[in-house]
Every structure is written in structure tokens, then in C-alpha cells.
């Protein structure tokens, strides 16, 4: 077991340190892993304090120069479900995050705390500080299992489309919310994530959400993931430790 662990760490180390600029399909250069794929490994964050220094300021979107990122337009809920969205959004106690439930995909990607990607040729792992959650994503060409039980983060399979890492996710439960307030979904949710490394060492992240039971059309969510400006590590976070918010939140009177 120790040997396997050491081999894995060596592999991870090679992946992290073996960056060699190479020409992309468009002629620009990207940091690459030893197998030639863009190197997504490392600590990443879309928003939050670790990105913006020791000021304590949380300024979502600060420093963003690119046009990549939300707006994604309003979530395309079926007309008869818009009232339910407004009702859920009016009472923060109903937010599964406030109830310390694990966030799903893609909401967890937009957390204020970082995530870490560990990349190997046949498997990519994403470790989330939010909820201390993880995803193990096989890159082996196999389809989703047919007997999935619903889960918070679903079942993921990865593949490379050129220089973009694409993850297909199904098998969700209906407990989590999508990005935004009140954005519930059904177990029919299907998410396709795209991680496109850029020459400036950012990742253009896009998650397309399809849910025929609640949406009239697919909905896209975009983020730019960045490395924090200094060494960071993924820390532990147990939301249930001392959650006093539920008894003090005051619902909005106007949904």
C-alpha cells in the first residue's frame, strides 16, 4: 500500500513539475503534463479571499479582464416552476449550503475556498476545500455505470477534446442547488464541464446544465479559475461543527 502511495505521489510530482511549454492547436503555448496534455494540476480558485491577498475583502470577479464568465442569462426554468424558485430564494434557510449539505456540480466550483486538481493520464482527481469533498474522474473511455445511486456530486467520466478536458456528469440527487439562489434541479440533471487551460495559466471553466424536468433549454455557467498568488493548501472544513445560522436567519418578506 505504501508502495502504491509512493508511486502515486511520484506520478503527481512528475505531473506537477514536468511542465514544458508546447505548441497548442492554435499556436500558443500551454504548460503541459509529461503525457502532452495541458497541465491542470495545482490549486485553483474562482473567487474568494485567497486570490486577493490579506485584506479580508471578498470581491467576486475582481481582477477579471476577460469577457469569460457569467453572464449566463437567467436560469431557463419552466414557467410553472418559477414561483418555486422565487419561494426557495426568499428563505436562505432552504439553501442546502446553509444546511451544511455538500454542494453539487457546478456550484462547488464557484466556492470562495480553493480546489486542487491532481492529474494523471488515466484519472483526474478534484479535491474541494468546500465540504471537504472530492471527485475521482476516470479518463478511460468507459461509459457511466447503469446502476448509479443518486449522489451529491454525481458520477463523472473525463475525456480530452483537443486541449480541453471535458467531464460528463450524471447520477445526481435532487438535494443540491445549481449556482444562484433557489436553483433546484431534478435527478435528471446532466452536466458537461469543460476545463480549458489558457496560456496565462488560467482555466476557462464552463458547465452546461441540462435538466428536462425543470429547464426549457440547457443553461451555461462560466468561471475563470486562477492560481492563488502564493502557495496555498487545501484545508479541512466541517460545516456541521457549529452551524448557528439556521435559527437566526430571517426569511425575506418579498420573494
Amino acid at each position, binding site marked *: 500500500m505504501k508502495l502504491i502511495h509512493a508511486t502515486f505521489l511520484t506520478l503527481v510530482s512528475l505531473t506537477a513539475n514536468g511542465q514544458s511549454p508546447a505548441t497548442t492547436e492554435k499556436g500558443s503555448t500551454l504548460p503541459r503534463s509529461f503525457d502532452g496534455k495541458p497541465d491542470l494540476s495545482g490549486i485553483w480558485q474562482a*473567487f*474568494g*479571499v*485567497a486570490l486577493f491577498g*490579506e*485584506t*479580508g*475583502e*471578498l470581491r*467576486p*470577479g475582481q481582477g477579471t479582464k476577460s469577457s469569460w464568465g*457569467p*453572464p*449566463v*442569462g*437567467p*436560469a431557463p426554468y419552466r414557467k410553472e416552476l418559477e414561483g418555486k424558485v422565487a419561494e426557495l430564494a426568499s428563505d*436562505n*434557510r432552504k*439553501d442546502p*449550503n*446553509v444546511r*451544511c449539505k455538500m454542494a453539487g456540480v457546478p456550484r462547488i466550483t*464557484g*466556492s*470562495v*475556498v480553493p480546489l486542487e486538481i491532481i492529474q494523471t493520464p488515466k484519472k483526474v482527481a478534484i479535491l474541494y*476545500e*468546500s465540504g471537504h469533498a472530492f471527485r475521482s474522474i476516470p479518463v478511460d473511455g468507459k461509459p457511466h455505470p447503469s446502476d448509479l445511486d443518486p449522489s451529491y456530486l454525481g458520477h463523472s467520466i473525463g475525456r480530452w477534446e483537443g486541449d480541453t478536458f471535458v467531464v460528463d456528469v450524471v447520477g445526481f440527487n435532487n438535494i443540491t442547488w445549481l*449556482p*444562484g*439562489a433557489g436553483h433546484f434541479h431534478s435527478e435528471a440533471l446532466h452536466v458537461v464541464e469543460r476545463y480549458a487551460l489558457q496560456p496565462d495559466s488560467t482555466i476557462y471553466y464552463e458547465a452546461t446544465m441540462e435538466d428536462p424536468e425543470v429547464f426549457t433549454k440547457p443553461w451555461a455557467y462560466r468561471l475563470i479559475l486562477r492560481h492563488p498568488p502564493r502557495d*496555498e493548501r487545501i*484545508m479541512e*472544513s*466541517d*460545516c456541521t*461543527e*457549529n*452551524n*448557528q*445560522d439556521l435559527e*437566526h*436567519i*430571517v*426569511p*425575506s418578506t418579498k420573494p
Partner: protein
Amino acid sequence: MKRLSIALSLVFLLSTRVLAHHSFAAEYDGKKPISISGIVTKIDWTNPHVYLTVDSGNESGKVTAMVVEGHPPNILRRTGWTRDILKVNDAVSITGWASKDGSNRMAGRQVTFPDGKKLFLGPPSE
């Protein structure tokens, strides 16, 4: 109308992400800023929020045990705090906003330490 809708959606997406755990406005009133000074009696260095309990006196001499909510430890660690930077019996001043439910709780924004050092405890109200 569509542009407004997209803009509102954007604000919605961003504003709900400002706090790691809950929406600021769900629990605190950004239009009711308050400042307290007093003695720290308890420090809960916990998730999803750090709480400081501060015995704060008013002009008539009445002492109130105010519970001050801050960021979780993971964020405070990244903004210059450590678990023992503040101790029970330290005298502090704290700015922030009042709770909406009328309890003796507040969202903490900035703490002034006994030596005059200032650190943010929680996010802005917007």
C-alpha cells in the same frame, strides 16, 4: 428587459457567493452599522463561522454579551489571523452590522486589537 434580467441574474449569482455559507442579508442588516467595545469572554474558532463573544457596556453601565460572527477559520487564516491571535480577557473594538432577528448578535467587519492592530473579521455588507 432581457439585459436587465441578465444583469439581475449576474448580481444574484455573485452576491450569493460573497459569503461562504449564507447570504449576508438573510441574517444581518447592512443598513444598521454598529460599533462595540468590550472584553472578549469566549472564542469559538469553528466552522462555518468563527464567533467572538464580547461583554460590551453602554453609557448606562449595562453590559451585553454580544456574539460577533466572522468568516470561517480557513478564510481568517488566509487574512492574517491565527487561532490564538486573540485571547479571552483581551479588550477589543469591533465594527459591523446588527442582526435582523433582534438577538444580541452582529456581523463583525473589523476588529481592533489591544495593540491597535486591525484585521477584518468578516465580509462587507454589500
